[in-house]
């Protein structure tokens, strides 16, 4: 009987092939579109961000300041500074459309800085290039602290020792030397650290994590779409008719579970193994990965059947399934790595991170962790058992 019911469900799918393809491809197309649009709008421009400097002060210090920003290690490879001191900021804004930002140094800036007054330089960020200007913001903001550090050194020494020098000429040369000295001191901050890298690692690279997250979100959304569009929740009349020919609730439940699991596996294998071909995800495809994804599919199918068992309106059960699915995937670490989650969410008694740990050992260690596999089997079984306990095995009639 179970076989017949599953056969019937597949017949329903085959009757609406376009709808089925829609549920399979639409989430993929949407994610692809997001990626494509972001890629288009960023393009290869990320590597080179243009910044125009409008320096009204034009002193040695401001020139040093620009080169401080220019020579910072974190910025170096991304920013190109262009000097244009003659046009006004407003005309620069109108003319230079490819500019991510305009740095405007006001007149008397150096004098104010030297006397310890807090005068800001103004950075105008171009909202037409949102990503570039955001990056410029992050990079320049980190420059703030180092320049302050360098200037504090210069100012302190100047404060105590400037009286020792007689002529103004000497003093300005001396300040220039100080500025160079303290700038290099502040910029050499990376020398504070000695870095050692551990190669035996137990976390995924961002690329592998992205793979997990994308496949998981695709699976969740396509299963939600499938449940909503194909209305896997049977009608009451249909259920009664099945009862009259002796098909118990339990048989219906099992057949539904098997069917949804098959659909989930189909979706999942499509996503999990097609995507690495199209995009360079650093994920080795092997038996362990297939088995791990299969358990995820079973778990998701169990969740859907559970939601539909308790909530009969399909719109609501789909919504419930979508939300619970997303939250548990988050707890599992399938979307962001579990170590970034707050400690309150990393609970011990529901071992959600079993799945994540299994993927880590499959992807990084390239071997199946059998103890975790046992835990996964247990979780799937528990998920299936809950509705199973509520259904009657005997016929009503």
């Amino acid at each position, binding site marked *: 009987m179970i076989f017949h019911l599953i056969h019937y469900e597949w017949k329903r799918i085959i009757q609406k092939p376009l709808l089925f393809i829609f549920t399979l491809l639409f989430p993929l197309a949407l994610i692809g579109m997001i990626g494509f649009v972001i890629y288009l709008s960023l393009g290869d421009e990320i590597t080179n961000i243009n910044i125009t400097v409008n320096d009204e002060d034009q002193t040695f210090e401001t020139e040093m300041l620009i080169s401080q920003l220019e020579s910072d290690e974190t910025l170096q490879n991304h920013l190109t500074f262009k000097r244009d001191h003659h046009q006004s900021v407003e005309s620069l804004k109108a003319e230079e459309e490819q500019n991510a930002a305009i740095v405007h140094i006001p007149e008397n800036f150096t004098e104010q800085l030297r006397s310890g007054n807090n005068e800001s330089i103004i950075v*105008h960020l171009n*909202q037409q290039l949102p990503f570039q200007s955001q990056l410029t913001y992050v990079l*320049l903001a980190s420059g703030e602290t180092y320049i302050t550090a360098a200037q504090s050194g210069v100012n*302190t020494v100047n404060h105590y020792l400037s009286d020792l020098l007689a002529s103004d000429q000497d003093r300005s040369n001396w300040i220039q030397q100080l500025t160079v000295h303290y700038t290099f001191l502040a910029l050499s901050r990376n020398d504070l650290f000695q870095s050692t890298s551990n190669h035996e690692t137990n976390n995924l690279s961002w690329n592998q994590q992205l793979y997990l997250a994308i496949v998981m979100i695709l699976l969740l959304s396509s299963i939600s779409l499938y449940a909503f569009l194909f209305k896997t929740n049977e009608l009451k009349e249909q259920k009664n008719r099945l009862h009259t020919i002796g098909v118990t609730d339990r048989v219906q439940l099992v057949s539904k579970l098997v069917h949804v699991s098959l659909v989930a596996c189909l979706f999942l294998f499509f996503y999990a193994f097609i995507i690495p071909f199209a995009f360079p995800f650093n994920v080795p495809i092997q038996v362990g990965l297939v088995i791990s994804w299969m358990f995820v599919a079973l778990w998701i199918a169990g969740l859907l059947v559970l939601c539909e068992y308790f909530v009969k309106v399909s719109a609501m059960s789909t919504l419930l399934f979508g939300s619970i699915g997303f939250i548990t995937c988050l707890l599992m670490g399938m979307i962001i790595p579990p170590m970034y989650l707050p400690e309150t969410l990393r609970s011990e008694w529901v071992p959600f991170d079993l799945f994540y740990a299994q993927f880590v050992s499959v992807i990084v260690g390239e071997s199946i962790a059998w103890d975790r596999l046992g835990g996964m089997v247990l979780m799937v079984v528990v998920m299936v058992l809950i509705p199973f306990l509520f259904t009657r095995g005997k016929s009503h009639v």
Partner: protein
Amino acid sequence: MFNIIQSMIRTKALWVIVLLIPSIFFLILIPLTEETASEVSVPIVIVDESQQSYVQEVFEEVSQSEAFTVYYEQELNLDELARGEVEAVFEFSDRMQEKIAEGDSDHLITWHRNENSMFDGLFKEELASTIIKDVVRAEAANMVTQEHTDATWEEVYAHGLQYFEPEPIFTIDFRAYDGQAQVEDTNEQASFFPLILWFYTWLMLIFFVNFLYKWREIGILERLIPISSGKKIVVSAWFILTSLIIFAFLGGAITISNSYDSAFISWQGSFIIFCICIVLSLLIYIILFNYVKSRYLFASLVIFYGSTSFVMALLIQSQLIHDHPLYKIFIPVWLLT
């Protein structure tokens, strides 16, 4: 005839969708996600085997950062790093303060990381900017005390601090402009609430139109055709009732959102444009209902359009892509401020 409409109101699921789910969203989900989102952080360990008070100070300063959870430990233990439980371990050398004072600042800290560590570089920057402050001040103090005997080392060292507090001497004032020489306020956090509200309404409408499809399927609408303009009356009655419920829902949602003190759901932008968007969405549904006979095709179409435009609007709002006149075909894009 109005029994038909009554049957709509009697549907329990309708009230769950209009009332229960949004209240769960407001009462539980928003506080929970806001709390969780603010608690998502990168775990970092600071190790100081010689228990220096200087390191304690540095630790207190860097642990104020919200993006990182910093743990202070007295013994080096790289197991957590290997297990992937922390992102990086920063091991401080002994006599930190003395070394800084002597101007010997190379390799003061050993930075243990994984090859897959992602965000620890940012923490390194933070730590570096905290320590470099003292390195520069110490260097200045050394320079001054060599030449000048009146001031003590400590005095000069303390003097340097005034350039950092209360505000750093060098600051950058960031301002945004819109390409065409127009200055705007920056740092204004974008609100996604209007977009979410539109998207939820859009999905809710699928449920409402489902009634029309059900009536069409069981032949109610066909049977009404002989009565003069009977079909029109039912569809208009449906339209009015749906609009009433939707607008009551939106009114309630906006009122509640305004009472929240939270940037995430604060309301920005124009109510009139929002209302126009909602009415337009309703019209799209009615027109589609007239031309699309299959319920499945209808659902696929509206889900396709709804999610695509929601995602596009999200991307524009989060400034990942720039607005383009062509994107106006997506209704929620109109809602962006």
